[in-house]
């Protein structure tokens, strides 16, 4: 019998993590993501895992990476200001290629902003929050079931590709309670990073392999390798040689291009004949879904394009979905972040933003109004 | 010894801190007091802590004015340690003095002048036999070994008192009575025996040398095995910081004209490892290989 329960988005992230094999969580309390930590504190000891509440956001990111360096599947969760604080160590995880999953439940900003109100203001920060060019994957679930399944997918990607994965949800999705069938969501397989198992002699922790994802040397297995946030050679030791440094950096970003098929995930609805495509993520995309139905009922050929993987942005899928569209509308709970990427990719299309930063979710009616304006 | 016509009898007791110089002189002073003499005892101690020189002048007679014995006027020199005996030998009356010394050697730390591992300490080279040729009467005895044979090293002082008893006109019983009052009750028997042994040893004649006495604790080899030291410098790692040059106790390293450390006095190197331990660049390696001494 299906195991249908009422579950909150934040808790679904925690259960998804456990199902994906996460055995270490380090966190720090912050609204509106604290339920993730609370659920992990409850669930992890039951499976012999480790939960620790660290002294601050920076430390919790550091401890998570530290545990991952030890070979465990790890996660942390945060929100708004906490996500800002985690950025430096997030960059470390990207540069040193340490697998980790970060849940960011977006709230109003800047600064303390509106802690209990939803926003989607971290779309650009999730991509470019840490300094320097770096590889990162950002997933954007739009339902409680997806909070679970996308967290599972986040673990699959981070473990498979050795790149940090951010699960970016807004406060509405995080605190939303929906009925889900956990059995149906349960992952059929567990993806774990490839640990180095060859000879220790001459082992290079960042060797260029066919899949561009070097095997992970687990401490204690005899490799005694060096891990650093400095730009490093395949040997793991720092370099400032221009060509070698560039090659090392480019490999970490190129590996995402190489594995684009694995990473990319979108929901495309009714775009085939659409004159107008609503491109959006999270709770705004759900409003967009309702708006599409409303517009269709009024005779407007509208479609929905919803990235589940927001970064790297699903460029080809967007272009395919908007091929016949005259206009694209991008509703988002910020002053226009995702719309910049859509404009960049669809240079010859009429792209329109719909921003909102008042601490309320965007309604389907607002989208319908905006689409009507655009088509007028 | 006949009582001197002029002035008091002088006994100089010397040794190093911790041996019991003061105790020996107190025994003697008490004995003289018991016989109605006027006694003056003058001592220097405490400055030297354990291991440093200690001396005590004991003068007794019908009347004693000065507390200290002038150079060349000691009737008996009692030395609890060999080098101290030699240090004070000029206080002894060359015509009438008697020399009583334990051949035990206690090497002071500052006598370790050669810092080679296992090197011998600087110490008086004269043998007891050589010294004995130049004194009128005397006993160079291994009092410590005699006491050790009796079961207590500390009784060496009493062995020397036994030898001293031959030079002074007090009865054996008088000596034993005083000694009994000074030593701990449980070691009375050993001290009685020690006194008898010492007295007996010195009755053989005016001079006697224990030819077998070796002295103790002189050879550094007893403490440290001799080694051959190899000092290697990895020049590519040395940054010329000067730490090894300045910290070397033997000053046997220097910087060459490339400002790289080099060993310029290999013979002075003792293999102490100071340079190796303090080199921040791990550029110095010391290997100390024990030298196998040929079997005797």
């Amino acid at each position, binding site marked *: 019998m299906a195991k249908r329960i009422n579950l909150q988005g934040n808790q679904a992230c925690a259960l998804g993590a456990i199902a994906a094999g996460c055995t270490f969580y380090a966190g720090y309390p912050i609204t509106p993501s604290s339920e993730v930590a609370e659920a992990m504190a409850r669930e992890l000891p*039951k499976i012999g895992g480790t939960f620790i509440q660290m002294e601050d956001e920076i430390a919790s990111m550091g401890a998570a990476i*530290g545990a991952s360096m030890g070979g465990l599947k790890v996660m942390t969760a945060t929100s708004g200001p906490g996500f800002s604080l985690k950025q*430096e*160590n997030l960059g470390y995880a990207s540069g040193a290629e340490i697998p980790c999953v970060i849940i960011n439940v977006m709230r109003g900003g800047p600064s303390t902003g509106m802690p209990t109100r939803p926003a989607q203001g971290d779309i650009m920060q999730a991509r470019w929050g840490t300094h320097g060019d770096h590889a990162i994957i950002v997933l954007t679930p739009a339902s409680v079931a997806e909070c679970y399944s996308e967290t599972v997918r986040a673990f699959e990607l981070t473990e498979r590709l050795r790149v940090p994965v951010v699960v970016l949800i807004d406060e509405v999705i995080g605190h939303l309670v929906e009925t889900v069938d956990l059995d149906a969501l349960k992952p059929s397989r567990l993806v774990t990073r490839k640990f180095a198992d060859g000879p220790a002699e001459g082992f290079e922790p960042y060797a260029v392999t066919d899949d561009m994802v070097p095997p992970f040397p687990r401490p204690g297995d005899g490799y005694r390798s060096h891990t*650093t946030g400095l730009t490093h050679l395949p040997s793991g030791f720092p370099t400032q040689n221009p060509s070698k440094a560039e090659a090392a950096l480019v490999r970490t970003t190129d590996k995402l291009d190489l594995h684009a098929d694995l990473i990319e995930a979108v929901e495309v609805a009714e775009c085939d004949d659409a004159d107008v495509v609503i491109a959006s993520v999270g709770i705004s995309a759900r409003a967009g879904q309702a708006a599409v139905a409303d517009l269709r009922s009024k005779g407007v050929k509208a479609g929905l394009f919803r990235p589940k993987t927001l970064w790297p942005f699903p460029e080809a899928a967007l272009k395919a979905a908007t091929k016949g569209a005259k206009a694209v509308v991008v509703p988002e709970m910020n002053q226009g972040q995702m719309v910049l990427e859509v404009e960049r990719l669809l240079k010859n299309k009429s792209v329109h933003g719909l921003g909102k930063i008042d601490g309320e979710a965007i309604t389907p009616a607002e989208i319908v109004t905006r689409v009507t304006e655009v088509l007028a | 010894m006949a009582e001197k016509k002029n002035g008091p009898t002088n006994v100089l007791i010397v040794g190093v801190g911790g041996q019991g110089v003061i105790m020996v002189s107190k025994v003697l002073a008490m004995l003289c007091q018991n016989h109605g003499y006027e006694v003056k005892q003058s001592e220097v101690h405490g400055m030297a802590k354990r291991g440093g020189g200690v001396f005590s002048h004991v003068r007794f007679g019908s009347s004693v004015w000065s507390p200290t014995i002038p150079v060349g006027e000691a009737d008996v020199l009692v030395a609890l340690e060999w080098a101290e005996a030699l240090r004070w030998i000029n206080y002894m009356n060359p015509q009438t003095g008697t020399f009583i010394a334990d051949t035990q050697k206690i090497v002071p730390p500052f006598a370790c002048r050669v810092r080679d591992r296992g090197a011998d300490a600087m110490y008086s080279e004269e043998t007891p036999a050589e010294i004995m040729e130049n004194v009128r009467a005397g006993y160079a005895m291994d009092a410590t070994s005699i006491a050790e044979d009796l079961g207590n090293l500390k009784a060496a002082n009493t062995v020397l008192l036994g030898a001293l008893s031959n030079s002074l006109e007090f009865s054996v019983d008088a000596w034993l009575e005083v000694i009994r009052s000074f030593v701990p009750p449980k070691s009375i028997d050993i001290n009685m025996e020690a006194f008898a042994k010492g007295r007996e040893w010195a009755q053989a004649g005016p001079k006697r040398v224990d030819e077998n006495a070796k002295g103790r604790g002189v050879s550094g080899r007893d403490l440290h095995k001799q080694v051959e030291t190899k000092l290697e410098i990895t020049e590519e790692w040395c940054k010329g910081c000067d730490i090894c040059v300045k910290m070397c106790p033997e000053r046997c390293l220097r910087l060459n004209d490339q400002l790289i450390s080099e060993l310029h006095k290999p013979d002075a190197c003792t293999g102490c490892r100071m340079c190796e331990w*303090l080199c*921040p660049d791990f550029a110095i390696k010391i290997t100390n290989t024990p030298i196998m001494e040929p079997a005797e």
Partner: protein
Amino acid sequence: MKDSVNEAEFQINDYIRLDQMPHFLCPGCGHGIALRALLWAVHELGIDKDKLAVVSGIGCSGRLSAYVDANSFHTTHGRPLAFATGLALARPDLHVIVITGDGDSLAIGGNHLIHACRRNLNMTCMMLNNEIYGMTGGQVSPTTTSNRYTTTTPAGNTEPVFDACALATAAGAGFVGREVTMQVTGLKNLLRDAIAHDGFSFVEVISDCTEIYGRKNDLGVSPEMMLSQKAGMRPEAYRNTVDVPFKPNALECGMLAKNDRPEYGATYRAMVDRIRGKGA
């Protein structure tokens, strides 16, 4: 006190990455001496290099991990204790040693230090105190002596200093000690006891920055700085002696605190066992 279990003679070349040598530290930098003492302690305890994890932060001290032939992690500025906390909890089979500096652990990472002391997780933190931010060119640090010149205190340092050991002790570290580099064997023994201690151990090493700090303050070259540091130390034997005028011996050295508070990792694992219905 745990005595040496490895009787073989210590050879530093067995514990460093020879292909990374010579290291990048300035001539006369005391950090190298401290690293020798640390590896010597590791050797005497007979710790398997494969089971040794060295975690460091940023700065001159942070670079040391790269020279240790072990599982080494050069992390972010001030955060090595946070990374090490995760690593030590995840892998109780590893010997986790953190190498950090005065700026790294007292300024930017001060919060992690006090909480690591409080938590008492089994690891050793060796803090190299050279009173300066050397890597960035010589800025004032939380331990820069009063009135000393740095690039950011051109008229002399007017801020008070941190006593790192007092801080660690107050925060509850299981083992706290301090030593100067000149006393390299004493430092080795202190580190050995620290690593052997079951809980969080903190060792402050008074190191010299000759090239930047020493030069700017006319403190002499390395041997002179090391000797003056030694002259200022107050070993355990001096604890109860009266101060000598003009020779304050203010720097308390040796083991300064030791307690047997429960080690956090074991406490947590016991709780997990209880929840899972195992054990007592």
